[in-house]
């Protein structure tokens, strides 16, 4: 169960469908850097429901073929530069969704059902571009209008960062339960944790309710500050100066390359 960050990155194969949490949840930037360092290719990222810096970096580094999300957002830092550049260059297949449909697709996978009805969406142009969404009807009320059905979303891997994990693979995520859903819906879940908890998270009645059982988890690596430069809920905020520097550099090809050199390749080479 316990392994290294590099091993986690090695266990996300090229072409894998990888579920990622948004920046306000648990973001394993440590593993994202290791994925870039190993030259991951053709990933299909699934933002649950959006992606932030990790998406922008992976896209810029050429690791991503497809991105499925309700949004790509760096929140107050403004538009995502490498995402926008890739869209402009036609270098990225974007599957635009909406938050509740992504949650519903994952819940369908969680329940092992092929699809799930979702409210709203009818009349949105999103629907026209999705062959994994369709219009159906309530079988109990013929009079009822159209209802959208979304196909189950079953990621190969969920990659997240959490405040605590134990050696049994139990992972404490507190109230950030989109990560619970992701773990249930995915074949494998790989986790970096701020701290390794000495004991069994499921044995503490106050920790267990916020814990993903080890049953769903296939690898855990310790990574203090593993969400940096993004923040981790309840632990630390984003590194504002670093992110502004990233934003500045990521506007150009050379600037982005210099960022990767400094923060991805150089630390790796120095090991």
């Amino acid at each position, binding site marked *: 169960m316990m392994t290294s960050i590099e091993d986690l990155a090695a266990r996300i194969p090229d072409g894998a469908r990888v579920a990622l949490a948004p920046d306000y949840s648990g973001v394993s930037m440590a593993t994202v850097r290791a994925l870039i360092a190993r030259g991951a290719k053709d990933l299909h990222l699934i933002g649950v429901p*959006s992606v932030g810096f990790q998406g922008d970096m992976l896209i810029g580094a050429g690791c991503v073929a497809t991105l499925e999300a309700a*949004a790509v957002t760096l929140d107050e830092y403004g538009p995502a530069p490498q995402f926008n550049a890739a869209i402009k260059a036609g270098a990225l297949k974007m599957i635009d969704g909406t938050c509740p449909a992504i*949650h519903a697709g994952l819940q369908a996978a969680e329940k092992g059902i092929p699809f799930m009805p979702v409210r709203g969406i009818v*009349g949105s142009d999103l629907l026209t571009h999705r062959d994994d969404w369709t219009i159906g009807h309530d079988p109990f009320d013929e009079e009822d209008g159209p209802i959208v059905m979304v196909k189950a979303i079953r990621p190969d891997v969920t990659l997240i960062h959490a405040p605590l994990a134990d050696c049994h693979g139990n992972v404490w995520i507190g109230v950030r339960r989109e990560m619970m859903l992701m773990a249930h819906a995915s074949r494998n879940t790989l986790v970096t944790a701020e701290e390794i908890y000495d004991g069994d998270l499921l044995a503490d009645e106050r920790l267990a309710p916020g814990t993903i059982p080890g049953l769903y988890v296939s690898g855990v690596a310790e990574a203090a500050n593993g969400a940096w430069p993004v923040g981790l809920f309840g632990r630390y905020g984003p590194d504002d100066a670093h992110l502004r520097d990233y934003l500045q550099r990521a506007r150009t090809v050379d600037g982005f390359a210099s960022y990767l050199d400094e923060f991805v390749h150089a630390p790796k080479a120095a090991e």
Partner: protein
Amino acid sequence: MSTDFAPEELLIATVADMLTGLGHVAVGAQSPIPGTAALLARARSGGGLRVSMLGSETHSPFTDGGRELFDCAAQGRIDAFFLGGGQIDGQANINLVGIGDYPETKVRFPGSFGSAYLYFLVPRVILFREEHTARVLVPKVDFVSAPGVSEENTYRKGGPHALVTGRCVFDFDDAAKRFRLQSIHPGHTVDEVREHTGFNFDMPDDVPETPAPDASTLALLRGDVAEAVTERYPAFAAKVFGTVNAA
């Protein structure tokens, strides 16, 4: 008198008035003015209004992860929400995806978020976009993230209530499926609104001025509300109210 308050304070007070009497208002990420308006409405409600701010660690009441806001809306437990748009058109369609012929967008926006859903399920959706230009307020959006109106047999419990911009307030007329100019902010004119609005809209013969916040509203806003908003939007609170986050 119109110099006694900041433009943001007018917008906050205007939006807050639209929340009077409601039970639960949710506010999305990156929404300092709607968020502050919700907190002001809460302060005036005597405990009657619940405010859920996404991305806030102290104002979020949710414990079921990212889906809970959406489930909660579908349960009918959220009375008002705010949406914006890179483009908004005269039928209240909103575009959060991009300009141009999708998927080959010339300008890409972040994405639709939950708009394609919440617009249908929250009874009172207030469209808020401070930038009031013909670039934003267009005749027809290039991509409908979420439609302003739906066919009759569509399950739709909510939709556009009003559109608040930096220049004016539009009401949305459900029957006519059009916006109607409700008031113009102090210092702005009908001609200016017309010039910067890309879609046609209705208007009364005599368009009133958006009411200025009164002294007690301003006192509340600059006191308890400013303090409450500082946790979530420190930069905004510092700029508008001069507050400093003690945390």
